[in-house]
């Protein structure tokens, strides 16, 4: 490998020897093409006309009135596929095409990355396999069906709790046996180098746009930028636009699950300890000995025991702050945004909204918070219905 892929001491590429050539090939291709004029132009056209970029920055007035300060939503939920995931799958899918790969594989939790990969598989005519835990298949059946409609094969993964961690395990195993013709389209800013760097690159459009939109629409930068963190791709994407703006607080919100105190959660940065999983050194939810915990969250997309290495560094340096929102608060946030604005947020993104609601009464009324509304909540309607049935 040309680079170490480290963020402080975090990251790296802790993988079996058999995967090294594939990661080397990917690293070389990424650094070759990511500033290549033809590649950049093609991606820009697709981002605009296929995915629907730029996404709006929307002032959520009624939601703001409820919390008592000004909340703007970066509307990634309006992109094709219903989430920010398409930014990355278009970028990596195009990279796969330029590399001459004909097959795509991907892991998915909520199904958003799986769907975004299946869409790109259809767009580029590539054979696509999506690895998804059996628990997630059950709780995200709509997305599973959409992936199949796009022509992808959905491979159910039974190991562990049948969630994202297990899907990544099996995708890595499959890749090990098919490295020569298969491109692993990793969905989060986590995993082995060069994925955290690649995913951040393709998601950084969120932050660049949001910063400019703040200046154009509000006339100043926000006081805080808030995003949910599972592996951390939407958060790193929006944070990256504000790194140098030291007065802008960067806030990541993890899945508090049923209870952070009770141990039933996926709040890795809040409650984890440094370890090694899925090719990277990062904070990790694990027992004393190093066995990785099964995590729990109402949102499949944040239900992950590790976290992107750059977030670990941002936590240690204090540049970003990380908190957790528990399931009940998240459902409250889902309901409030839907009722006050007519926007159904994904349960993942609802974590960021829940943090904002926690700040009610604590911040001045002229405070400006930008929330990355990373995905829409259509896929979560049946889960919300189960937790909060509507009385007739």
């Amino acid at each position, binding site marked *: 490998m040309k680079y170490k892929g480290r963020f402080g001491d975090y990251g790296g590429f802790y993988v079996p020897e058999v995967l090294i050539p594939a990661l080397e090939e990917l690293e070389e291709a990424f650094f070759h093409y990511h500033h290549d004029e033809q590649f950049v132009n093609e991606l820009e056209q697709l981002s605009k006309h296929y995915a629907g970029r730029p996404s709006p920055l929307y002032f959520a007035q009624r939601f703001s009135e409820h919390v008592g300060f000004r909340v703007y939503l970066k509307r990634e939920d309006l992109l094709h596929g219903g989430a920010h995931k398409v930014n990355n799958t278009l970028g990596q899918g195009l990279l796969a095409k330029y590399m001459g790969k004909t097959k795509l594989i991907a892991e998915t939790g909520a199904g958003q990355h799986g769907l975004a990969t299946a869409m790109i598989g259809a767009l580029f005519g590539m054979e696509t396999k999506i690895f998804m835990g059996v628990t997630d298949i059950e709780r995200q059946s709509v997305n599973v069906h959409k992936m199949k409609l796009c022509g992808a094969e959905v491979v159910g993964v039974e190991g562990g709790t049948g969630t994202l961690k297990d899907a990544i395990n099996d995708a890595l*195993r499959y890749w090990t046996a098919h490295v020569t013709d298969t491109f692993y389209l990793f969905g989060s800013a986590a995993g082995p180098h060069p994925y955290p760097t690649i995913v951040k690159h393709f998601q950084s459009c969120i932050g660049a746009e949001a910063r400019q939109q703040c200046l154009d629409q509000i006339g100043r930068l926000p006081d805080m930028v808030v995003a949910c963190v599972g592996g951390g791709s939407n958060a790193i994407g929006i944070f990256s636009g504000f790194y140098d703006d030291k007065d802008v607080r960067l806030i990541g919100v993890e899945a508090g699950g049923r209870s952070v105190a009770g141990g039933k959660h996926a709040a890795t940065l809040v409650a984890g300890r440094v370890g090694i999983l899925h090719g990277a050194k990062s904070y990790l939810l694990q027992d004393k*000995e*190093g066995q990785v915990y099964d995590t729990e969250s109402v949102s499949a997309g944040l239900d992950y025991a590790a976290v992107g290495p750059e977030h670990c560094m941002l936590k240690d340096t204090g540049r970003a702050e990380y908190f957790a929102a528990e399931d009940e608060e998240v459902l409250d946030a889902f309901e409030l945004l839907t009722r006050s604005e007519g926007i159904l947020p994904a349960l993942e993104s609802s974590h960021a909204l829940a943090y904002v609601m926690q700040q009610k009464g604590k911040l001045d009324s002229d405070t400006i918070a930008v929330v990355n509304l990373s995905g829409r909540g259509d896929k979560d309607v049946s889960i919300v219905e189960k937790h909060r049935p509507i009385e007739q």
Partner: protein
Amino acid sequence: MKTYKQVFSELDRAALIPFFVVGDPDFDTSLEIIKGAIDAGADILELGIPFSDPIADGPTIQKADIRAIKSGMNVARALEFIKQIKNYKDIPIGLLMYYNLIYQYGTGKFFEDFHKAGVNSVLVADLSIDDGDEIIGSAASAGLDTVFMVTPNTAPDRIKLIVSKTTGFIYTVSVLGVTGSRDNLSGTIEDLIGDLKKLTSVPVCVGFGISKPEHAAAVARAGADGVIIGSKIVGLIEKNLNNKTEMIVEISAFLTQVMDAISR
């Protein structure tokens, strides 16, 4: 303590190296199985301490890891387990590990404690030669040999680097993929063994997918110094979970067949 060097120099055939997950299906049965394997002629043992997320392993060994963890196996008990094997016979032992368990224990202390218990080497499945420096120094000061993997897609320059940092044996992976029984051996493995033998005097052992006596015989004929068999015998544990006597008999019988095949 018997060394790899002693074993390889004493043998005029390939070494028989069975792999087990310690504590599969439980502490006592696992110990009996391994004693049986030693009696059947195992020259070296390759042992795994179970991990929750074994990404280099196929379904057979994943299930073994789960059985072992459920039965209460952990790093501290693995130390005790290895001491009991060494009390039975002074046989060289290589550990096959995932990095997080070592990292949490403390790398230096892990190597020291397990060397004291009777381990000769520690291969970390998810640590490549690029990060070899994280373990090589402390392995050497603990008195351990190093073992690294070479796979069919490892580039020639990289093979040279790996070979130069290996003191125990080269763990040569016979296929692109994870562990697991396979009907046929990869066609390129014999060439890879030949290439490695030209490059180094460090012993070359072959594993992943070797599931029949004739596979073992073929890699031995191609010049391998050792044959590592994992999933096939771990599968025999799974198959006979309700009959422990039969389990031990079948594993020993299979290893005896392999021994015959590589001794011819």
